[in-house]
């Protein structure tokens, strides 16, 4: 009886993307296998085959975008069990959160993972934005057809979605903290002249914060906003690929081109196949500079795994050390003193406290100026900045490039003011929004009138 001779070593791939061994793609033995890995592995399909080594530097991007994405993943995953345990009704919401915190096995840990990820995601997304600004990474460099400015706009929208997701989640425990933070937040919308009250009524589904508000915030929090953020996230990543990777890659390419004696424009460098003539083009001299590129598998995969798994580890450990607060049940009759918005809105709360002014008998509510106009202007300016920034393409992908010194300084100043106001609002505001140094004791106040 004839036996089929088995090959001693795994057969070479029969075709690109076909390989007899599972999980082989994590340890490619050749450039060919490394390239095949990206094509054949679903989880890797959004990576390029080769990446510029400098783009992987820890100290260039600090991997803040990856960390934000890891936190988003963690939020979705930790949100799933909470979805089964939480009841979005004013009678039972508080009780169900209390059960999650005290009765459900591992409930408090899951809630803590969810809450800490949310807080850290706001911080990580903000820091990612700061990094992209300071490196001028929204600028187009050497590649053709790049539209990095639009990816920046998408990013600003994702920051707003992150904030709104966090804010809608804030109400769900239906405790005093939640109720009054949302009272203050939605009354800011009501301070818009003429249409304000209608806007607030649409937001909260009535004149008072009640069941319609809870179900609205719940639906936004668990379906609408995550879906929107997920869609924008996918587009954000796709655009990064279309624009030729991180801005730093352009920088390296530009530098090389200048140094090269006679550059040969020979190849259209596309990352996802043919891109109808609008793909970024980079000269072969830099594309195939072996000293500057590495295979995405395993180099990019390894670093991304370190960032993602590291984030998971930090959150998991933190969540078992830090309990999530749950105050008294929401009581519309008693305003806690002080009543504070979530920490990432406290810089706005600081501003709305100081911006009421009167001109000729006509008083402008500080809430409108500080809560609508000013943040609206800031966000608008932020979104439009790539078109205002007139520096040359060489400034793309460089920390503190000399030609962008002034705008970087102004930007940093605004960031510092926002951070400082947030710190003041968080740690130095006591009862009736009075200023206290952290070491000063707050006066004892009667809790009831």
């Amino acid at each position, binding site marked *: 009886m004839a036996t089929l001779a088995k090959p001693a070593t795994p057969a070479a791939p029969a075709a690109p993307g076909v390989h007899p061994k599972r999980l082989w793609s994590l340890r490619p033995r050749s450039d060919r296998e490394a390239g095949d890995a990206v094509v054949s592995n679903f989880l890797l399909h959004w990576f390029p085959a080769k990446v510029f080594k400098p783009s992987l530097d820890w100290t260039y991007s600090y991997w803040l975008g990856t960390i934000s994405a890891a936190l988003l993943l963690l939020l979705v995953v930790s949100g799933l069990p909470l979805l089964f345990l939480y009841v979005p009704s004013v009678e039972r919401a508080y009780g169900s959160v209390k059960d999650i915190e005290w009765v459900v096995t591992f409930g408090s840990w899951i809630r803590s993972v969810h809450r800490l990820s949310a807080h850290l995601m706001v911080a990580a997304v903000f820091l990612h934005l700061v990094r992209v600004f300071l490196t001028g990474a929204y600028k187009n460099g050497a590649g053709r057809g790049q539209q990095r400015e639009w990816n920046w706009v998408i990013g600003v929208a994702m920051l707003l979605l992150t904030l709104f997701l966090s804010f809608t989640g804030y109400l769900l425990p239906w405790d005093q903290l939640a109720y009054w933070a949302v009272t203050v937040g939605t009354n800011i919308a009501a301070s818009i002249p003429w249409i304000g009250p209608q806007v607030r009524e649409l937001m909260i589904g009535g*004149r008072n914060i009640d069941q319609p508000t809870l179900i609205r915030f719940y639906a936004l929090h668990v379906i609408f906003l995550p879906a929107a953020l997920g869609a924008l996230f996918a587009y954000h990543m796709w655009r990064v690929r279309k624009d030729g990777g991180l801005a730093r890659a352009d920088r390296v390419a530009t530098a090389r081109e200048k140094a090269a004696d006679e550059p040969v424009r020979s190849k259209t460098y596309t990352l996802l196949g043919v891109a109808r003539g609008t793909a970024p083009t980079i000269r072969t001299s830099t594309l195939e500079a072996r000293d500057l590129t590495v295979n995405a598998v395993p180099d990019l995969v390894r670093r991304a795994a370190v960032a993602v798994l590291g984030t998971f580890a930090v959150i998991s450990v933190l969540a078992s050390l830090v309990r999530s607060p749950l105050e008294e049940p929401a009581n519309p009759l008693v305003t806690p003193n002080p009543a504070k918005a979530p920490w990432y809105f406290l810089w706005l709360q600081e501003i709305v406290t100081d911006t009421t002014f009167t001109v000729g008998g006509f008083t402008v509510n500080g809430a409108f100026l500080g809560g609508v106009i000013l943040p609206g202007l800031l966000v608008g300016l932020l979104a439009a900045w790539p078109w205002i920034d007139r520096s040359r393409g060489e400034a793309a992908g460089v920390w503190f490039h000399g030609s962008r010194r002034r705008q970087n300084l102004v930007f940093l100043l605004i960031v510092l003011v926002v951070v400082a106001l947030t710190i003041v609002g968080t740690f130095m505001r006591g009862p009736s929004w009075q200023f206290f140094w952290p070491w000063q004791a707050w006066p004892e106040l009667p809790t009831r009138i």
Partner: protein
Amino acid sequence: MSREQKNRRDFLVKLGIGAGGVGIGTQAAASLRSLLPNVSYDAPTTVKVGLPADFPDGMKFLPEQRLFVFREGKVFHAVSAVCTHLGCTVRAEALPQPETVEVGGAQLRVTHRFACPCHGSKYTGDGKVVSGPAPRPLLWFHLSVSPDDGQLVVDLAQEVGRDFRLTTA
């Protein structure tokens, strides 16, 4: 293809796109409109708050209505406890000595002042803003006596001037 045919094709293409746009737009508008409540289940704005005799001389806070009811003998008035800045409930602090001030052309004995816990707005006992971000004075609401059982009735939808007083029999 003749010119007429081409024009007709262009026209039909535009008509199709337009009809699609109108269809999607209408559906979007219908979905959004469904989120605007047609019926309010909020608490009614006209509320009976008890017999005048049950109110102490001075001030009584009604948490459900977020309202301060002041009494001086047979004279009543009601001041909202909702801060005009961002809607927190203000707190009343008793003055060490009641003061008499002239408010809206009438004398008023003021026994309290108000402070908002959220952003630190401060009001005098008749609702005027002393300091802080509040843009307007606290509202005064209409009080009346119910003809059927003699209870005080507050109308939270009817704002009145600061010279308003209800004198009971």
